Structures are given as C-alpha cells and as structure tokens.
C-alpha cells in the first residue's frame, strides 16, 4: 500500500461504516413500507377513456403528466447543447467499413426505421411510444455513422437543428395553440387527444433519434449555412 493509501485508510473505513449504516437504514425503511401501495393506478384507469390512448404508460407520459415529458425533452436537448459546446469540429479518421458492417447496415437500417415506426404507432395501445421508437431510430443512426456516413453539409445547419428541436417545438406549439383555443396548458380536447398525442410523439421520435445519434457522434457537425 502506498503512503497516501495508508493515510486515507481511516477515512475509507469511516466511509464504509457510514455507507453500511445508510444501507441498513434504507433497507429497514423499505421493509416497513406497506406492501399494498395506494398509488395512482386507479385514477389513471378511471381517466384512461378521456386520455385518447389505451396504454396507461403513454397516457401518463403524454397526457396526465405531459408537462414533465415536455421538460424532459428539454433535458435531452440540453445534453446535446452541452456536448456541442465542448467539442468543436470532429476529427474523423475512419477506415471504410468492413464487409460485415457494410452488409449488416444495409440490411438493418431499413428494418430499424420500420420498427421505430411500428413502436411509435403501437404506443397508443401497447408498450411502445416516442422514447422507445426514438431509441431504435437512434440505433439506425449510430449504425450509419459507424459505416462512415455523414449528413450532407447542406443539411447539417438549420435543417439538422430544426429536426433536433422538432419534438420540443411541436410540444410547445401544441401547448400554445390549446391555450389560445381557451384550454389550460396541455389540456387536450378528448376527441382530438389521440391525434395530438400521435403528432407530438411522431415529432418527438424524430428528435430523440436524431439527438441520441448526434450525442454518439460527440461533436457538432461541420457548420452548414
């Protein structure tokens, strides 16, 4: 053990003891919790009819607590702002893709886009939705980036930024339009709720996919117009 390590030993022991106490305390607290949590599943089920979708998870994410989701899309976009502010122009020295990567990506990318579309559509009544569809779309993007494909510089300026903010933008526009129509923030009229949720989710899928793929690239693409 190094000299420094020896000096730190008492602190580490103290830390271990503290963590042990914390774990024991938390464990005790969790064990005393009522096994039947009241939760909110009853009100969710009761209002599912009015939410416009039949999948309770989507109903919570895009209707009952849509405001949280709006802010979460902001968090995702913010992560990209952060990455782009750190690294400027990427330095790429890639070799051309091998036969496996080349063949596989040709095979998989169309499928991934199709699956993303299905997940987006299925979210209304079964597990799925914008976040899942967006992740699958991002996987297609990552695969393309690995093969050395890059967005044409014609599209890497405003068009790329537009697609990145589309999800948040459509969400905000829908919110503002609904308010102007006399509702509250994100209060969908029940007859339009399903369509509005699909609209928001479609834009969000695109943005989530693009954002995750752009995060994978790790730097701002060559500045376009």
């Amino acid at each position: 053990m190094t000299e420094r390590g020896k000096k730190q030993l008492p602190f580490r022991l103290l830390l271990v003891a503290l963590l042990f106490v914390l774990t024991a305390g938390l464990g005790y607290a969790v064990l005393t919790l009522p096994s039947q949590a009241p939760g909110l599943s009853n009100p969710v089920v009761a209002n599912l009819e009015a939410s416009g979708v039949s999948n309770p998870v989507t109903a919570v994410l895009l209707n009952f607590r849509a405001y949280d989701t709006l802010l979460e899309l902001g968090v995702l976009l913010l992560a990209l702002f952060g990455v782009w502010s750190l690294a400027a122009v990427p330095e790429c020295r890639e070799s051309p893709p091998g036969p496996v990567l080349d063949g596989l990506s040709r095979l998989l990318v169309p499928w991934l886009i199709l699956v993303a579309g299905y997940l987006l559509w299925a979210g209304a009544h079964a597990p799925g939705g914008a976040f899942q569809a967006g992740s699958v779309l991002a996987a297609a993007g990552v695969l393309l980036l690995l093969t050395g494909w890059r967005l044409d510089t014609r599209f890497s300026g405003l068009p790329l930024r537009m697609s990145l903010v589309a999800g948040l933008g459509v969400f905000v526009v829908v919110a503002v339009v609904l308010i102007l129509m006399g509702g509250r923030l994100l209060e969908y009229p029940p007859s339009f709720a399903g369509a509005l949720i699909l609209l928001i989710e479609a834009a969000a899928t695109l943005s989530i996919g693009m954002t995750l793929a752009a995060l994978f690239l790790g730097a701002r693409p060559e500045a376009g117009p």
Partner: protein
Amino acid sequence: MSDIHWPVIVILLPLAGGVACFLWPRRSVLLGLLTALGVVACVAGLGWQVVEQGAQRYAVGGWGAPLGIDLYADGLSLLMLTVTAVVGLGISVYSSGYFERARYGQDRARHFWPVWMFLWTALNALFLSADIFNLYVTLELLGLAAVVLVALAGGADAVSGAMRYLLVSLLGSLFYLLGVALLYHSFGSVDIAILAERVEPSPAVWAAMGLMIAGLLLKTALFPLHFWLPSAHASAPAPVSALLSALVVKASFYILLRLWLEIFPFANAALAQLLGLLGAAAVFWGGFQALRQTRLKMLIAYSTVAQLGYLFLAFPLASITGWTGALYMLLSHAAAKTAMFMAAGNTLYFGGHDRIADLDRAVQRMPLTMTAFALAGISIMGLPPSGGFIAKWLLLEAAIRSGQWWWGGVLILGGLLSAAWVFKVVGYAFTRSEAPHEARAVPATMEWTALLMAVLAILLGLFAPWLLALLEIGSPFNRENAG
C-alpha cells in the same frame, strides 16, 4: 387580463427563446435579450395577478392533483421569480457585452444563450411547481444547464470543475428522487399540498426526509458539503459565476424550504439546530477562507459559502421573522453577489487576471466597477441601509425573540469577517502594483450593469416593507409549528 395564463407563459417563453437562440445562432444575442425583456414583463404580469387575486393554483392539463401536475404561485414563489427576473435581465445585458467581445468570441456566445435560456426556464418552472416529482425534473434541467455553462469557460480548470459539479449535482438529484419514491409509495401522491395533508411520521418518511434534505444540502453547498462550489463558481465565465451564486444554489434552498414547511413540519428541533450549526460553521469557514484567497473570483466564491450559511440560521429560529430574514438575505445576496462577480469579470477583462495583490489602481482606471464592488460589499457586510442589513436585522430580532441570542453573535462575527475581505480588496484597488500590466477598455454595458446591480442591493434596504408584504401572500410560513 386576469384570465391570461401567466404561470405558463413565464415557463414557456424562455424555453421558446432558448430554442430560437439555438436555431438562429447568429441572432442569439438579440433573441436572448428580447426574451429576457419578455420574461421580466411576464413575471410582472404574474405578480400583478398574484397581488390582485391572491395565491394561484393552476392544474396543468385540467386534471388536477393527484393525477396531474399543479403549478402554484404564492408570495414566496413570486419573490423568487422576481429576483430571478431582475438578476436574469442584468446578467443577459452583461453577457451581451461579455461574450461578444471578450476572449470568448462569437463561438462561445452561440452556446451561452440557448443554455442560459433553458436554465431560466428551469428556475421559473422550479419556483412555480407544486409537485415533488416535477421539481425533480426541473432540478435535472437546472443542474445540467449549470454544468454546461461552467464548462463554457474552456480549459482544464473549468472542465474539471464542471465535471465535479456534474457528479455532485447528479448525486444530490438521485438522493432527492429516492425520497420522492418513498413518499409516493407511502402516500400515493407527489403533490405537495396532498402530501402535507396525508403525511405522518414513519420510518419511510424519516428516510425520505433524510435523503431529500441531504441531497438538497449538497446542491445548496451548505458547509461541509460546499467542497465543489468554489472551483465550479470561480472557474466559470463571470456572468455564469454570477448566475450560479445568485440563483442556482438558491433554487435547491427554495425546495428545501418548501419541503421543510409543508411536508416535514414534524422535523424535530435537533435537526433544525444541526442545520443552524452547519450554517454558522459555513459563515465562519467561508469567511475565513475568503480572507485567505489570492484570486478575486475564488474569494467571492468562498464568500458565497459563507452567505449561504446565513440562510440556514432561520431553521433553529423557526419564526416568521426568521424565515423572512433568511429570504431577505437570499434576495440581497443575489443582487450583491451578481454585482461582485460582474465587477470581478470586469477586472479580469480589463487586466487579463484576477490576482487581488495586482489590482493596480483599479479605482482610478475603472471607477464604476470598483464602486459597484464596494457597494455590493456594503450589502454583504450588512451595513445600513442595504438589503443585507435588513436581512441581518430580521434574523437578529428573531434570534433575540426566541431566546437564542448566540445566533446573533454569528451574524455580527460573520459581518466582521466579510468586512475584512472587502477592505482588503478595496485596499489593493487603490495601490499601485509592482508589476504594471497591459489593460484594455471594458464595454460600458458591463460596467454599468455591475453598478446597477450593486445599487439595487443597497436599495433593497429601502424597499423592505413593500417586499415583506409581498411575501405574506398565501402565507407560506403560517403552517409551521413555532410562531
């Protein structure tokens, strides 16, 4: 005008502004300034609504708690929104000069504005939220934006400071989230008002309380959890340092205050005394460390550690006077510390360094900036007629009334420590340095905003009755136990 959805506009406007700044980076300064003006106007609109109609509750989506999310605006929220708007406008104007021509250049400016607008969104959303899970989401947005802004300075110091800040911020958020999960499982709601009705002591609630308070203290940087603050606040660009010290650390304090008053009113006196003791330790440790620093921004950052300590002195006092004193401290510190970091940014811009010993007749060369520093110093020390004086007076009154006069001693000694470092800096600003250096002109906007913020910190002392009346709307402090 009363049916305008002010709480919503106050949140969506900076968000839309941030998106616009991102889409059209060449216009970001103009877009950012316009958004800042718009937000100030909308906060004024919300203020008018709250003053006229009392506390506002707004059910997002029309669902209402517990199914949906509620927004809630009372005097306390309004005060926080107002200070954010005023400081935010000042920082926006300052930044338009700072990032435009400083060594940062155009490229930094295009990254600064969208992130700053998102940070403003997060702050406004946080002060308006009545839902502990929604508060977590705003905390996430706030923390991430703050980290990005710290890293904007570039260089190893800033990036490692930002990294440490990110890890601390995430740890704090996760502690908080764990507490939210425990409360939701126990009581089936995440709405603060509903939780306040249903909550009763149980091991899970004690665990939630411990986790949430610990997480928020970490984010508020109360001694000894302040270790991350000086490096993050000192290495950031000057307007960002101002933002972090004036607003970001206060946001987690605000959540702590809300939880303490509403959900955990049964928290025992020993815990309150502990928070008070840590606050007192912060006052002494931060003041002492500030005195030892050789760099101006580091000194101001340590002074933030000390000033945050005062906020926690209100917990053992547990009276309305005490809470208002702490909040007044929060207000005047926000204005004064913004002015100080702006002044430090000006000296850095002017001479290319912030070594206190080499300030080199800054008074003659930058009279506005040094006046701003000195005026802000008056408020930080707590001399009349500044806002800091009113805050300390209220805290002192609460301490004597509750028979705990020793907290008053902390206030006075802390003031002396602040005075020591303020005079040290001002002294060096008058003397000629041994190593004269190149200097370049500071944009007038940067000098004037620093001065205006400092004047505001002094004027806060004169507006006290009006602001204190504002704080009583919706009586946020009447719920607590000891009167």
